[in-house]
């Protein structure tokens, strides 16, 4: 009696073990592996990371496929989230390549920086970055923070630049990601640089809808967002340099920088601001997967 039960239990345990082993070993090319990995990495396994931002994931996928086409072994570690999480990973070698945005990256390491234009920012980066991290060529493609309003609102108050917000007679509410409240270019920056007081609402991923719905009247929207054009939003100009220019720039672990520089620099050269917006359109409007978007882009640009 006990033997049958034991046998049954053993059979079930065996089945469970097989199931577990099967799940663990299934390793299609795109599957993100567990990040702890091995400390010592084979010199040609490049670990490409991305932020939890669909546009950044597309760029990362382009890097990954470009490297694979060039014969490298690539692991993907996407949707990592915040700089606090992936910068240490880059430094430790857990992640070796990451598509970043020059201005935001610089401000993360050097909040007091006075660099504002794309070239100034790019020039200031190597000093600001910690030991062991370097940047490759920056792309002309930009995706930076901006303050944006609906065209109706802009017409109502004749808004062209951020400074014009002083003309607005109703209370201003700024919407954006939760951390915007504490960023130097957030409400405090608006007050310091332009003398404009705003309330803050952490609209996060629904910022665009909130702007359209009117729950906020000023929004922090990334310039590569296709909806700026499709919805006719007005990006306010920034004459006082509240925002740093932010171009797409690859951040690389210094150990592998030389190996992959050629491949990645070619990608950066081919990526344009309009091109980036087009990629975002393919993702949000055509609902294509990052992998498809990436391979199509690489083919169109003769890089596959």
């Amino acid at each position, binding site marked *: 009696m*006990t033997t049958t*039960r034991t046998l*049954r*239990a053993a059979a*079930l345990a065996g089945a*469970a073990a097989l*199931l*577990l082993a099967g*799940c*663990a070993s*299934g390793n*299609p090319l*795109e*599957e*993100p592996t*567990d*990040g*702890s990995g091995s400390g010592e990495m084979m010199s040609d396994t490049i670990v490409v990371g991305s932020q*939890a*931002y*669909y546009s950044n*994931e597309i760029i990362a996928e382009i890097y990954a496929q470009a490297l694979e086409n060039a014969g490298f072994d690539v692991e993907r*570690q*996407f*949707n*990592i*989230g915040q700089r606090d*999480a*992936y910068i240490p*990973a880059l430094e430790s070698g*857990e992640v070796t390549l990451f598509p970043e945005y020059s201005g935001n990256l610089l401000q993360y390491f050097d909040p007091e920086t006075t660099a504002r234009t794309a070239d100034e920012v790019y020039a200031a980066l190597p000093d600001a970055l910690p030991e062991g991290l370097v940047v490759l060529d920056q792309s002309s493609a930009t995706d930076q923070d901006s303050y944006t309003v609906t065209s109706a609102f802009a017409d109502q108050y004749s808004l062209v630049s951020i400074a014009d917000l002083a003309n607005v007679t109703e209370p201003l509410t700024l919407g954006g990601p939760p951390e915007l409240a504490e960023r130097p270019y957030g409400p405090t920056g608006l007050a310091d640089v332009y003398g404009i007081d705003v309330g803050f609402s952490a609209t996060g*991923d*629904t910022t665009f809808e909130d702007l359209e719905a009117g729950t906020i009247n000023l929004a922090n929207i990334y310039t590569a967002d296709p909806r700026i054009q499709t919805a006719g939003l007005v990006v306010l100009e920034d004459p006082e340099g509240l925002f740093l220019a932010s171009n797409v720039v690859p951040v690389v672990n210094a150990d592998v920088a030389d190996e992959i520089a050629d491949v990645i620099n070619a990608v950066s050269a081919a990526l344009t601001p309009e091109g980036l917006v087009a990629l975002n359109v393919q*993702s*949000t409007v055509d*609902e294509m*997967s990052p992998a498809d978007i990436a391979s199509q882009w690489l083919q169109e640009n003769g890089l596959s």
Partner: protein
Amino acid sequence: MTWILDNLDLILQLSVEHLRQCIIAIVLGFVLSIPLGYLAWRFGLLRGWVITITGMLYTIPSLALLILLPTVFGYSALSDGNLIVALTLYAIAILVRSVVDGLDSVDTGVRGAATAMGFSGTRRFFGVEFPLAGPVILAGLRVASVSTISLATVGILVGVTNLGYLFTNGLQRRIIPEVLAGIIAVVILALLIDLLLVLAGRMLMPWTRRSRGSRTVAPAASLGAGA
């Protein structure tokens, strides 16, 4: 709808990853909760503490735990090991209670009879008490499994990729079918595991099959025993 059909491989891949993370946590949680539950049950003093601590663990929001554990213990927040540790802790919080309740539900008469027959401590535990506590523990295991599979989706907010990716990515890209696919996949996985556990229970505990169909009235005795 077409999005789902076009991206079946992504959904499948994420589901496999999701299942892997959850199964490890559930198994680990189960294995760890047996000795903990036994100790809590055996030593009355410990019971109060264990119940209180596991209850408190329950109240910590999962997102916070996922950030704080790596900060306090110094391991990488990125690895899915982080998620698995947190899920295991929540599973233990549920399962320890079940183990204690299950052992509680074993008739003292039966235990007495086993001792009278000559079963010593360990043999009695694994041969009599634990199997008889089975149905209650299995019920707890089913709840823990469903909870874990559902809870694991939060991992995406700390960078652990699983079915939760379909939620955040779907929100960013405004693709409703993507979010829906994520929900459906999680529900299917949870119900699948639940079904497997029920079948496993029937295989391993054939004596429960007899009472399955009947609507047995609760006898006064078992009510009085505080079952």
